[in-house]
């Protein structure tokens, strides 16, 4: 049984149908990437999974249906969503953001330990604990968004274009960190990414979303060898 099972999921904004029955799975501890052009519905798919957008079809996390549940209840089960474009709380400090990440946890010592660990992993955040999140650079805010999600000890991380607006070097570091987190903590990830080359390195498997439908899927290796995918997403 997969950790996340999405079967024939559809979603719409009012009358506009955006997802036309997509199916995908993420196993425990696995990293899966979703590729797709602008407007394909990638963000919508992640929103549907985390409960921010109403959806039809089947949606199971750890064997239990989470379709139609509130976002907070899905979060409590261990799904953490890092939204596209800095989902940090701009008016709060870095530290407050981090502590909010652990909102559904009650284990004080565990929270303190994780806080120390993630500050260790993301040194620029440690230096800026009392800085207001909104005044940080885009890259720092993206780091904060990821670190805050990790504070919830998720079992599945939904990452929506974490490299958006980051310098190539910073992107590379971020992906290395994600790989380490995945390896050491066994946190599964469903990753939406424009930087297909890096994403396919990190991921074990992938899906290609086009106009709200899954048009291709396979192991990362096979996808990066596929001629059309190379042309469309790898630019060569």
């Amino acid at each position, binding site marked *: 049984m997969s950790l996340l099972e999405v079967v024939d999921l559809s979603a719409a904004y009012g009358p506009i149908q955006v997802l036309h029955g997509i199916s995908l799975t993420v196993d425990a501890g696995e990293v899966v990437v979703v590729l797709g052009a602008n407007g394909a519905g990638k963000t919508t798919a992640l929103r549907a999974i985390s409960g921010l957008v109403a959806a039809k079809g089947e949606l199971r996390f750890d064997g239990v249906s989470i379709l139609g549940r509130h976002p907070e209840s899905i979060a409590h089960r261990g799904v953490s969503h890092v*939204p596209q474009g800095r989902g940090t709380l701009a008016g709060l400090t870095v530290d407050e953001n981090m502590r909010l990440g652990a909102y559904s946890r009650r284990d004080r010592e565990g929270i303190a330990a994780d806080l120390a660990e993630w500050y260790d992993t993301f040194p620029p955040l440690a230096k800026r604990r009392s800085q207001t999140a909104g005044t940080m650079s885009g890259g720092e805010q993206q780091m904060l968004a990821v670190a805050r999600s990790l504070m919830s000890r998720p079992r599945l991380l939904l990452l929506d274009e974490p490299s958006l607006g980051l310098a190539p070097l910073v992107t590379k570091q971020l992906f290395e960190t994600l790989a380490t987190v995945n390896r050491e903590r066994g946190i599964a990830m469903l990753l939406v990414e424009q930087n297909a080359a890096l994403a396919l390195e990190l991921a074990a498997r992938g899906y290609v979303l086009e106009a709200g439908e899954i048009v291709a899927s396979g192991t990362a290796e096979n996808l990066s060898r596929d001629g059309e995918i190379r042309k469309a997403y790898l630019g060569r």
Partner: protein
Amino acid sequence: MRGRALGIGTRAGAALLTVGVLAWLPQYYGATDTALFAKAIYIAIAALGLNLLTGYNGQVSIGHGAFFGFGAYATAILMNDHGWDFLATLPVVAVASFVVGAAVGFPALRVKGLYLALITLGLAALFPDLVTKYVHGTGGTTLVQPPLPTSPGWAQGFAPNDDQWRYYLALTIGIVMFILAWNLVRGRFGRALLAVRDHDAAASTIGIDLARIKVGSFAISALYAGIAGSVGVMVTGLANAGRVETFQLSINFLVAVVIGGTATVLGPVVGAWTFVFLERATQDLFPDQALLSPAIFGVALILLLFALPDGIVGGARRTGRFARRKLQARRAPRAPDFPSPIREDRQ
């Protein structure tokens, strides 16, 4: 929460000094002024609660005079008709206002911003009618005037007059309510309030139950307004819910929050005292011109907000941060905090 600049020692010292001054006031000033100080205290209590709702949680209410009135009548009626002790009415008022606040907060979940403000305005409009219908006070009016607490024998040393004793009661309640509010905003609940205000989608994916936080902040702010109403009765000796009074109080609370500084713990308290004193200072300027004093009071408020757009506490904080940076710069000249706008690769 943000400006954790002053050390614990400095803060504790400042708090002790403030409490000391507040305790000394009725020793020096007479009954009229003491009543004014007590008014500042009960407005501060209501503003503390409203700040949780409006400042921290972003839900604007211009109807909290209704919850104030609810607390005032509950205390007045329990004391007057049922012979309760003033202090004994407080827990009842707290629970009842909390429940009524939650009941109002639930439908308020569906509306935001201006619409919410209008609904709360409706609450302030409705409340006097409810009182007229259900309260039968002295001589067919809706005024209830309960017997007030008097200074007990053991307090004769520091509060020989009843108005002094009532001031000290109000002050004690105010301090307790302040400490509670301070603890609330410093922790998990305070962070959740701000998260829901700033970014509700992000808050919900973090695991914050939006409905619970929004209704909860409504209920807690109503509790504060209710307790403020009880203290108001104890100070003025009167529960009254005229239409004008209910509106006026609602606005007063909001003004206290805004001029003090929204989403700061100290703001509403500073705002309430400033408000009461400005009102008092402008009151008797022109005894024969009834409209001139309120106009000058209004202009004073506008000027205040013009000079300090984020309130007195917000402004003080900004100045403090600025001064500290200057001091540090003088002590140890160092590279600027922000990288130079010219990128290295272009040089």
